[in-house]
């Protein structure tokens, strides 16, 4: 089950780095928000890696991922922004991350060693 946790850490880091890249490379629409989102992902990666309050942190990361997905989808539908290859890649990783967090949360609550 450790594999699930470290997969989550890698996915969180990947999303965080991708968000930083997006904020740095894409000019024109609130790029600073992408830095904030990336920073939170990297912080979350550290928390998950350290296994601090695992039930709470895993559930929070799961909710945060879905929250950002929902924000992105609605803003994209309304304004047509964020519809490019980097954003798609970012959201694809986030989708995998959400599934990963579900599995991790269920396993950790079931008492399996994570």
């Amino acid at each position, binding site marked *: 089950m450790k594999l699930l946790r470290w997969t989550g850490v890698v996915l969180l880091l990947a999303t965080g780095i991708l968000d930083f890249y997006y904020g740095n490379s894409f000019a024109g629409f609130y790029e600073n928000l992408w830095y904030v989102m990336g920073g939170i992902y990297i912080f979350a990666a550290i928390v998950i890696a350290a296994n601090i309050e695992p*039930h709470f942190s895993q559930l929070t990361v799961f909710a945060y991922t*879905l929250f950002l997905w929902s924000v992105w989808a609605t803003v994209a539908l309304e304004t047509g922004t964020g519809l490019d290859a980097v954003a798609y890649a970012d959201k694809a990783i986030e989708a995998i991350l959400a599934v990963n967090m579900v599995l991790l949360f269920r396993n950790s609550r079931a008492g399996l060693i994570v």
Partner: protein
Amino acid sequence: MTPSGFGKLSSAKLLTAAALIAVFSGAVVGLSVGYVVHYSAPVTRTFYLFDGTVPFNETMFYGHPHDTFVPDTITVNKGDHVLIHYVNIEDKGEAHTYTMDPPYTFDATIYGNATQQGIVSTVTTKDRIILAQGQNATITFTASWAGVFRYYCDFHQPTMTGYLVVIG
């Protein structure tokens, strides 16, 4: 010890509750952002830029040149692609530069005049080009930084100065 609060709920219930709250609040935030922010998608904006003169005797005003840019202000939105057709329309053998303040650089193709036909040179990521009398250039760049930035002719300062206004 019996679990309380958070611990009483099953994993499935907690995940479902978290998912519903996250998706709903995300949709509210997303719709609000989309409603409040009036976003205009980047477009290519084309301008024609010329050298001009103000009709005064250059020896009368502290030796300042009478050359200017026409237009002296170019306004775009951040993220726009800018295409400038710059023409040196001097009636005498006078050269002008197109120089931009950092951090801006541009790509340019310089075309010849009556005596030198065709493409004279092509430059990339430069901050300065020189146009001889009758030459013209196409200058392209992306307005990636918001603010007010000078474009000017090195040879005719301070009068031959324009401002790129990038609305962020």
